[in-house]
């Protein structure tokens, strides 16, 4: 039995700065980290490994430097790591990413359970997890806050919804995406780091996978980014002065001017 955790390297900030001329993200001086939601996915996989004795693997797609975060996952206790790295994967949107990851999952022999973070902090789409499940033909539950029970055949999860929580049962193999309620991600142990700082990370290129190259990378991405910009959020403050009654009158006038309340008389 195997658990695969899909992880992504993201910039270590959510205050993204854009180059005013090119409208591309300024990456200079910003270090890269494991997507914070993925750290919960890694932790949950390690907990399940301890509980069920299943094998664990981490899978990512990106440049060779992504090996660093895969080794971090191994230092935490993940058994193996795989990286999909090839120019052919570059420029992928969520659909092409999910397609590549599906190829990766199949390449390593599939999994009984795939765990993804709820979303990546650099894109905030939350699409890749569910798309990957669809492509693999397995059921999925998103926004999982707790795994209530799990065995080789089925699992019961408590998932967060807009209106509260739901308990959902599904058959395995399956995929879940997890949120920050599910656990407290730990730190690697000293032994873990000493064991894995130069551990091998298996890298696959496009020809290694059983995939259609035209469905990968930029070519396989139906999403086109026309323009990226920071929304202009300005809030005007106005100080109301005068006596309490004058201020109250002024406030009433402003609120009715903006149709927030109807002024009587």
């Amino acid at each position, binding site marked *: 039995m195997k658990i695969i955790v899909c992880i992504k390297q993201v910039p270590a900030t959510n205050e993204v700065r854009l180059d005013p001329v090119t409208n591309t993200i300024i990456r200079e001086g910003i270090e890269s*980290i494991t997507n914070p939601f993925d750290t919960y996915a890694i932790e949950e996989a390690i907990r399940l490994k301890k509980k069920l004795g299943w094998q664990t693997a981490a899978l990512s797609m990106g440049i060779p430097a992504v090996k660093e975060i895969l080794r971090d996952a191994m230092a935490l206790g993940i058994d193996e790591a795989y990286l999909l790295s090839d120019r052919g994967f570059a420029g992928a949107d969520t659909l092409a990413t999910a397609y590549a990851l599906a190829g990766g999952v199949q390449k390593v022999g599939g999994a009984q359970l795939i765990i993804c973070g709820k979303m990546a902090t650099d894109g905030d789409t939350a699409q890749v997890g569910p798309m990957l499940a669809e492509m693999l033909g397995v059921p999925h539950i998103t926004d999982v806050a707790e795994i209530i029970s799990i065995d080789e055949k089925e699992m019961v999860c408590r998932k967060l919804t807009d209106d509260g929580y739901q308990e959902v049962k599904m058959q395995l193999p399956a995929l879940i995406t997890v949120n920050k309620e599910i656990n*407290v991600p*730990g*730190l690697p*142990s*000293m*032994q*873990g780091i000493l064991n894995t700082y130069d551990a091998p990370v298996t890298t696959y290129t496009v020809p290694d996978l059983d995939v259609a190259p035209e469905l990968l990378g930029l070519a396989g991405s139906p999403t086109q980014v026309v323009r990226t910009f920071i929304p202009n959020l300005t809030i005007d403050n106005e100080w109301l002065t005068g006596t309490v009654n004058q201020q109250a009158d002024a406030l009433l006038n402003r609120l009715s001017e903006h149709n927030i309340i109807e002024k009587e008389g």
Partner: protein
Amino acid sequence: MNLIRPLTEDYSDYLRDESRTLGYADTISFVKTEEDIVEVVKYCYENGILINIQGARTGLAGGASPLGGHVLNVSRMTKITGMRYDPKADCYYLTVQPGVLLSQVRKALENKAFDIAGWSQESIDVLSKIKPGELFFSPDPTETTASIGGMAACNASGARSFLYGSTRVHIHALRVVLADGSVTVLERGVHKAHGRDFVLPLEGGGEFVGRLPDFDTPHTKDAGFYFRDDMDLVDLFMGSQGTLGIISELEISLMPAPKIMWGATTFLPSDEAGLKFIRAVRGEEIPGVPVFKHKPASLEFFNKNALEMILKQKEITTAFSQLLEIPENFNCAVYTEFNDADPESFLPILKELAQVVVACDGDLDRTWVAKDARELEKLIFFRHTVPETVDMLVDENKKNEPCITLLSTDMSVEDKDFEKLYHLYKSTLEKTNLHWVIFGHSGENHFHPNIMARNKEEFEQGHAIFKEWAKEVSKMGGTITAEHGAGKIKRELALIMYGEENMAKIKAFKQTLDPKNLLSPGNIIS
């Protein structure tokens, strides 16, 4: 006098500080400039009104809690007013008002985000040459909302003082308003005593001629007064907790930020193993342990009670829900942090540290490692949870018995008496039914035993224990407060440390600078 207003119910928060000491006062002012301070001080001087000085009120010894008269609050003096580079010393300096918070300085340096309104062109030019995160102000009292003025006044130290020294050494220059409203400007290395004689130059001409008490204050890194031959006069106002003057501006020295900050928390099977590990990581030669050659930035100890206390509080306090899960069967833990200029130093130092862990009966699987500043926040959060929890418990206990305050000590001894001090604390506390923990800065031999008194009897028992310890520590040649200042809570202990004779000399000395005895009543001096 527009600045001075009655201290009504609305301002009752300003009667207390983080130590949970409740004071009393008639009036309060929120000064914004040095001119404001001078105006208030002159008024008080003329009318013989006591002046209590407040910054961010995060102190743990009651230094900011008033004892009658007027509260002069500098928490609205929050401007960083300029930057300077001295090519000779190859050092950058930042000029700040006393109410500027440590967190504010850190954030401004990290993001290179300064409000430069009112800055001189020279300052702006210097700023333009630095990069975000390049410079760093090392003092790190646990509370980052401490004000720089307050940190200087009590000569605060923190976990990283082990490597960088306490606040004192990072304050380069000062502007100080004296008791009569005159202002002196002092720079380290420039304005020094000659033997015991000194001169404070006054703005607008004139000078104050004085003579230091004829004894050296104990210990070099202690809070409290600092008297030495030929001393820097800046140091007169470091640690003296507002008793000699009011700091109206500070120039703080900055240093190149370390390129890597990482740390490890290791769980050890016994207190003996914990203390041995601390000695080993300090670089001491211990039979059977490889000599460790890298000086940590900090070395923090947690005894079993402290770990059990936060485990329990984690169940109750949602803010602690993301606290790391402690391995089972722990006895104590030691946090070690490294700051280094070479980002590649992590792995080699980690390998050497691992050997020390094993040689001290530690377990590499039960040692957490945070390999960068981001991960380090988790370990620092874990460390900070201990005093935070103590505060919560004290607040809870205070509801039943209002006289209860924080009962925490920060005594410190020389390296040779390290174990002796720890066992003095532990053996005394084990004989009682008190609720207690021991944690803190083991690198510099100052643990923080904390007693969470549940009633008046326990509170008094705690105080009596502290007095006994103060006597023992004084006998060992240590200091009764290495970090928080004596303030009001520990002035009795200060008396034990200085002795009656020297305390009388301190009083007489204060009288020369503050003839009406108006400044910071109740701080240090009894």
